[in-house]
């Protein structure tokens, strides 16, 4: 019976079998890093500010004269994950329609940004908010109170959209 001997044990040289030189080599690399500049971010204290192109939590734009959203329902229609639910109502403002209810289920949201792309009023945009922690399924459904963000906090994204959308 032919037997081909090619186990790992057979392939290793004597020094390799000892492992000690290899450990020393590895430690050498580790110690070298001590004297190089550090990249680690001290996260909760030290935060990262994304650029305008970042797609974080979708939010509604709160303009000087109120919310921009007219509850057309296109975001809800285009959302591939069905995360958005809109219920329209009538207002006295020039644009007759407004969202009585606007809910985004953040457990469904996949941050694709289609809602922002389809929005005819530039009312829903992806914010820089990436800290999404919920303690229950119900908490993950964000209503209008949590979604409306003043426009000055969203300038970066709006400029990005105007340039590239």
């Amino acid at each position, binding site marked *: 019976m032919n037997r081909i001997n090619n186990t790992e044990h057979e392939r290793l040289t004597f020094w390799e079998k000892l492992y000690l030189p290899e450990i020393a080599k590895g430690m050498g690399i580790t110690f070298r890093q001590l004297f190089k500049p550090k990249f680690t971010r001290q996260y909760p204290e030290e935060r990262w500010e994304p650029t305008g192109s970042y797609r974080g939590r979708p939010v509604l734009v709160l303009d000087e004269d109120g919310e921009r959203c007219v509850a*057309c*329902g*296109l975001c809800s229609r285009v959302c591939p994950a*069905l995360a958005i*639910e809109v219920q*329209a109502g009538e207002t006295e403002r020039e644009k*007759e*329609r407004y969202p009585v209810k606007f809910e985004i289920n953040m457990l469904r949201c996949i941050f694709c940004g289609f809602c922002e792309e389809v929005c005819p009023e530039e009312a829903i945009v992806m914010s820089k908010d990436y800290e999404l922690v919920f303690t229950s399924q119900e908490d993950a459904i964000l209503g209008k109170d949590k979604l409306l963000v003043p426009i000055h906090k969203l300038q970066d994204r709006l400029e990005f959209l105007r340039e590239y959308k």
Partner: protein
Amino acid sequence: MPILYIDGREYEARKGQTIIEVAFENGINIPHFCWHPELSVAGNCRMCLVEVGLVKRLADGSIQFDDNKKPIVNYFPKLQIACATEAVDGMFVRTNSPRVVKAQESVMEFLLINHPLDCPICDEAGQCKLQEYAFKHSTGFSRFDEQKVHKPKRVIWGPNIIFDAERCISCSRCIRFAKEIAKQDVLTFVQRGDHVTIQLHEGTQFDSPYSMNVIDICPVGALTSRDFRFKSRVWDMSFNDSICEGCARGCNIKIGVRNNEILRVEPRTNPYVNRFWMCDYGRLHYQYVNNNRVIHPYSRVENKLEKISLTDAIELAFQRLRAFHPSEIMFIGSAKTTNENNYLLVKLATEVFNTQNIDLFEHYDEKFGDDFLRCSDKTPNLRGARLVGVYPSETSISVNKLPEAIKSGKIKALYIIEDDFTEFPEIYELLDELDLIITHQYNFNLLTENADIIFPVTTFAEMEGTFVNIDNRVQHFAPALVTKNNLRYMGMKMSRLDKFGAHNDRWTKFELRDIHPSWYVFKLLANRFGSNWNYRKAEEVFMDISMNIEGFNGMTYKLLDEYYGIILGRAQNPEPKVPIYESHYMKP
């Protein structure tokens, strides 16, 4: 019979037909906004422009041929509107030549110049003829940089209609509808050019009982419903075919549903019943399906209604009914419910109880009827109910004799389904003298306050069945709403939200009612009394009807759907199928 050629194919026209009519009957769609088969021809949208020509003839009238033996056609230098050009013999029509396409694109560009970009706000979006054509017959971009004309928005035209002048494309369909169909000539064009708009005559309002049909025929969102305003997007709703049960006409309708709630009702074309129209009453009286529903069986214990299970309710009804002599029980069917339900009620009364005390209340309102669609008979199925056997024999007790019979103690128990005594208030005072009242109800009402056992049952929107309308036409309808027991009836349409919702989505938290159609309750009750009924669905009850009741012979649900309902006794030779005109053909 004039013979004409549309896009190179030969078609035969009837004398006096216009090109667009011939094209429509032969399945060619010529784009149009203002033409409607039921209305007079206005010819003012210019969308249906086609190239028209006649064969070249010699002085003696013979046709001139070219070298390839084809007739030489002289096309008119200007395009003609297909809706107002009569088809004549030897006419050649091109509906999609480059000239025609260019004309259509130009017309669309003109129409869109002053049309506001309101689609996100507009209720018509998603079912808009202008949107459809902008998608299909337009270049896709605008060259117009100037200010759009501003006109009044949110003009109240009547109790049910709101008008937005900016969105109007002046097709005049509403003006013609008001004048010709609704017979309330209150609308007119005012101003000229791009300032043209539609106004009501001074001091009038458009409050005809048929006013809401203008919402359907309006090709844009200029006319919208005040009731439905902003309730939902059309693409979030499911539309299932049904029959209106407001009166005996039996108009064909579509029920628009979201979250298992009826949001609107709109007419469905049936050339033999309602054609394209329905009345406002029929559209707006769906609220009883959504609200105040009985969703549990109840029994009365010490003058209070208590929820019980369906099995217990059947058992209780069995125990209580058994105590009476059959002639002491009065069965009251309903002209408001289907043939299937009434048929099994009759079967229950005659076969299980062996009594002929069966009758129903007729609900007439002379003020309601008119000479168009509305009937004085405000129930959808009086004829059907009578036909399947809901009538007393000569010796038994009818509803007219009922008050006396209750007073004299001849009738001690009342089994009444899906009806109440709203129009017969004198009976309410006698209810205390009865020992037992069993009722099937949709809503809590004065009768449920007096009843001993209440079974919750499905309304027309939640079950399958047939109605027989005033012209003896048997029409089938299917459920539009979901209950626990019809969970997705075969073929029921679902909206996208319905389809993909999960249990933890908030939009799926609708009321899933645990209710059955009346015939199912009769089946349980009859089987408790020892019969052996094994109907599994309404269709099987209808098969029974079509075998046993004269007039229904040979009818099946499939056949009824296919021929838009069939007149009694004409299952073998139903009225012919005709092409159905859909104004907004992309409408869900």
